[in-house]
């Protein structure tokens, strides 16, 4: 048993690719071992900007010898068959084994040295490595077939125990030498074996453990903020990114001019985070402070004074640019910005963004005037809709597209729009997918809902629904947002009515089906059964999604009781018996029925007479639990019915009567839900 070290050293690997690269390296390595019949006790991977490495422990020195048996021709087979078999196996006939009248060739395969397996596997892993983007480089790149790597590959360390595993790929030979930190350590380092890899590199200012660098950044950034009496705004994404940009991370606090705090804090945070990879800090009052934490890659001679000064200057330049945009944008009324939306294509088949805004504004007014969204002023809602996309043409959103909506909210407030309007502009993109905050403010709800509804209706009407994994216009996300808005705000309306109001003018069957499908996906997380949604939707006529979901929930609660399960079983039995026949439902008011019926028939009939109108009334009052309770009263009589009487009685009249009775039972249940769609 021994350990193996592999290090693939290159020029700087993009930070965002390192975590995945570690996983890919482990996978490819394990696959290569498995193919050779080897397995390691453990495999650990490492990534820094300049290296991707792996340590496998507990590898055997060689693979086991195996004997492989190949079936050959039968005794007495034509000589050509035997000749062919011998040629294939390279044996002579006397070396074959005969068993049950069949020849077998047995080939003994000696075990292979693990070092040989690895020497073959390393170049194969390198060539097969699935980098998201790779490149050619250097003199070898006269051929487009030359080696590709994420950035130029510079060296390979491959050590099994204390020995080199010699291999070569495109002129790069493996060995025991690597490099330390780019600036803290000059010259090469010789690694003895896997056990001293991390320590040798640590001595050369390289921390190979990704998690250790993350911890230093996380803790160090926090400590730097606290030392200044501030609180770090934690950001695990930034921790990982900075760990991917450093081999020797050193977090340090810097400051910026407090005058920049006039600029919306989202802008400052975004500039700091996205452009500079800095953390930001809050003061004691939880407001953004004029401080940031950057992560250097060196222990500087001057303890980082020059680095902090440099970074402060860069951030100041960025913030003054942002301030410039902010001040310029404030000079232009949003109404004037909105006019420029005519220049921006929403989609070549669906007109400009101005066209979209116009459609949304009309839809918003309709939603409010119809009373679907309550508590909003129609004028406010339309105003918000008309301005909601205006920030797309501002300098700030041009620079930071992520701030769409947020900037519009700021500009609207600054020009004196009401809070309701400004909030609606700010939040109308929400919710962005499952789990995001769902707006509750009426004006915001109206604008957000109309925006998504228009997008969905227009793209579907133009024949561009999502297909398979392709959803270029994020319609699935829009649908989830639309549904969340409806359900969380209890918006009561006919889905079809809303779709017609979009004016997209097409049949909405595909879109409705798509939305119901999304509803199932969205509800799965909260445990609502998809088959029960189908059971309600397939009744037809129920396209008020709020009511639909309330019914589904009542149904699910009932179905999961023993009584509900029995009723479902009875329904399935009844439906089965009725399959193919369409009997007339009987009523209990003729003497003839009374005469021929058994007590179990009468009991069911009486129960139906009471339960049917009860269920109907409860449904009308949207008391779905009560409708279920009404159905529940049928459970005992239907069980008794199946127990005591024969449906297929010899007497044709009795048979017809009972079939009719069953049909009434089925229909009574079906007015509550289409039980035939329920699974189980």
């Amino acid at each position: 048993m021994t350990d193996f070290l592999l290090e693939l050293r290159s020029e700087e690997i993009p930070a965002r690719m390192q975590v995945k690269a570690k996983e890919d390296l482990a996978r490819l390595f394990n696959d290569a071992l498995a193919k050779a019949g080897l397995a390691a006790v453990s495999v650990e991977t490492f990534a820094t900007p300049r290296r991707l490495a792996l340590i496998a422990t507990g590898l055997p020195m060689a693979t086991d010898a195996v004997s492989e048996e190949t079936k050959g021709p039968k005794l007495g087979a034509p000589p050509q068959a035997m000749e062919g078999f011998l040629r294939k196996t390279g044996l002579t006939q006397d070396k074959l084994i005969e068993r049950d009248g069949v020849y077998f060739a047995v080939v003994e395969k000696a075990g292979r040295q693990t070092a040989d397996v690895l020497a073959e596997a390393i170049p194969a892993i390198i060539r097969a490595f699935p980098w998201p983007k790779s490149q050619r480089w250097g003199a070898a790149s006269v051929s487009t077939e030359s080696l590709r790597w994420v950035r130029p590959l510079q060296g390979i360390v491959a050590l099994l125990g204390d020995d080199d595993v010699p291999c070569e790929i495109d002129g790069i030979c493996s060995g025991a030498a690597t490099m330390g930190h780019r600036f803290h350590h000059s010259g090469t380092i010789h690694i003895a074996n896997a056990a001293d890899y991390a320590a040798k590199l640590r001595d050369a200012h390289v921390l190979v453990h990704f998690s250790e660098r993350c911890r230093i950044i996380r803790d160090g950034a926090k400590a730097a903020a606290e030392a200044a009496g501030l609180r770090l705004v934690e950001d695990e994404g930034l921790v990982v990114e900075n760990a991917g940009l450093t081999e020797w991370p050193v977090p340090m606090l810097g400051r910026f001019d407090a005058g920049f705090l006039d600029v919306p804090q989202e802008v400052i945070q975004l500039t700091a985070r996205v452009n500079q990879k800095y953390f930001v800090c809050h003061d004691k009052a939880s407001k953004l402070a004029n401080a940031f934490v950057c992560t250097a890659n060196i222990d500087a001679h001057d303890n980082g004074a020059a680095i902090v000064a440099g970074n402060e200057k860069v951030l100041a330049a960025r913030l003054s640019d942002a301030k410039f945009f902010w001040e310029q944008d404030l000079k232009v009324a949003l109404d004037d910005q909105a006019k420029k939306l005519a220049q921006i294509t929403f989609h070549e088949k669906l007109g400009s963004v101005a066209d979209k805004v116009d459609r949304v504004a009309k839809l918003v007014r309709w939603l409010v005037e119809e009373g679907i969204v309550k508590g909003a002023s129609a004028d406010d809602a339309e105003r918000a809709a008309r301005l909601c996309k205006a920030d797309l043409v501002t300098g700030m959103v041009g620079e930071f597209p992520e701030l769409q909506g947020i900037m519009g909210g700021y500009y609207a407030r600054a020009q004196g729009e009401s809070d309701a309007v400004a909030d609606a502009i700010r939040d109308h993109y929400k919710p962005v997918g499952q789990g995001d905050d769902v707006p509750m403010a009426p004006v915001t709800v109206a604008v957000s809902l109309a925006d998504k509804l228009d997008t969905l209706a227009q793209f579907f009407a133009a024949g561009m629904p999502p297909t398979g994994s392709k959803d270029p216009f994020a319609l699935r996300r829009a649908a989830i947002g639309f549904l969340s808005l409806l359900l969380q705000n209890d918006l009561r309306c006919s889905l079809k009515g809303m779709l017609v109001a979009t004016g997209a003018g097409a049949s909405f069957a595909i879109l409705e089906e798509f939305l119901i499908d999304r509803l199932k996906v969205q509800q799965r997380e909260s445990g609502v059964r998809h088959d029960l949604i189908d059971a309600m939707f397939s009744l037809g006529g129920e396209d008020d999604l709020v009511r639909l979901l309330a019914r589904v929930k009542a149904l699910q609660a009932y179905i999961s009781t023993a009584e509900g399960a029995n009723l479902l079983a009875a329904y399935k039995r009844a439906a089965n018996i009725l399959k193919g026949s369409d009997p007339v439902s009987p009523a209990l008011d003729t003497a003839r029925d009374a005469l021929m019926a058994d007590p179990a028939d009468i009991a069911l009939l009486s129960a139906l007479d009471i339960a049917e109108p009860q269920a109907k009334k409860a449904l009308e009052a949207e008391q779905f639990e009560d409708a279920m309770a009404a159905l529940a009263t049928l459970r005992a009589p239907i069980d008794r019915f199946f127990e005591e009487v024969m449906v297929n009685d010899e007497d044709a009249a009795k048979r017809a009567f009972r079939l009719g009775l069953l049909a009434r039972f089925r229909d009574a249940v079906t007015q509550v839900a289409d039980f035939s769609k329920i699974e189980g």
Partner: protein
Amino acid sequence: MSDVAPLSFQDLILTLHDYWGKQGCAILQPYDMEMGAGTFHTATTFRALGPDPWNAAFVQPSRRPTDGRYGENPNRLGAYYQYQVILKPSPPDLQELYLGSLHAIGIDPLLHDIRFVEDDWESPTLGAWGLGWEVWCDGMEVTQFTYFQQMGGFDCKPVSGELTYGLERLAMYIQNKDSIFDLVYNNATVDRPAVTYGDIFRDNERQMSTYHFEVADTDMLFDAFKKATAECESCLQHALPIPAYEQAIKASHIFNVLQARGVISVQERASYMGRVRDLAKGSCQAWMAKNGWAA
């Protein structure tokens, strides 16, 4: 920075010339046409194609009409200077050579935080792309570092390494200035005063911004764009890649001015860029053909 006085703007250029000249680069002069970046110089575009080795360095005045700020913004200019190095094939120690150049201009990598941060370069108008980094010095991007993979739509065989230094940014850094216009352009002598970058260029920024944003005759420019396009095609028919390419550069610049003038809609933008790209690609193709290189 260090004990010695920081380099003036012109000394920065001279130091880089000296450094890259010693590395075997031919020190060229700027291309004498208006262009948006050093990559447009034929020393980069054309020389990145084909198998022949090529090592050159030069300053390229670069015009970005939309970035003009009337000389008011301390960090933005409508015209600035790029220092461009191209090494073909890319040498195995290109990063070390580059870091050597930073050392030569007075940046100590144990005092300043030098980082290679992913930034893949793409020029839609040249049909070119490559992988590489923006090089950060204490968080400031000072150089674009690219391994060209394609130029004019053709695979680079072999790959060139391209370094593009933003000279003004680097100088602001070295001289510790907050405004481009305060940069020391040259050092004073006993009887001749120093001049600043602003002394030389602020008026250019003001006037060119006014011209690009307010005055430029758009009818004339649209017409000129058309004529440059036609001229490029005519040169291509005569198998003259260099003059054809010059017309492509001209069309590209005219397009940039039209954009600054705000008369090209978002929809039209892509189609104009596509036309320039076709001209550049056609020129590259003609260059390949003239030299007898297969794609």
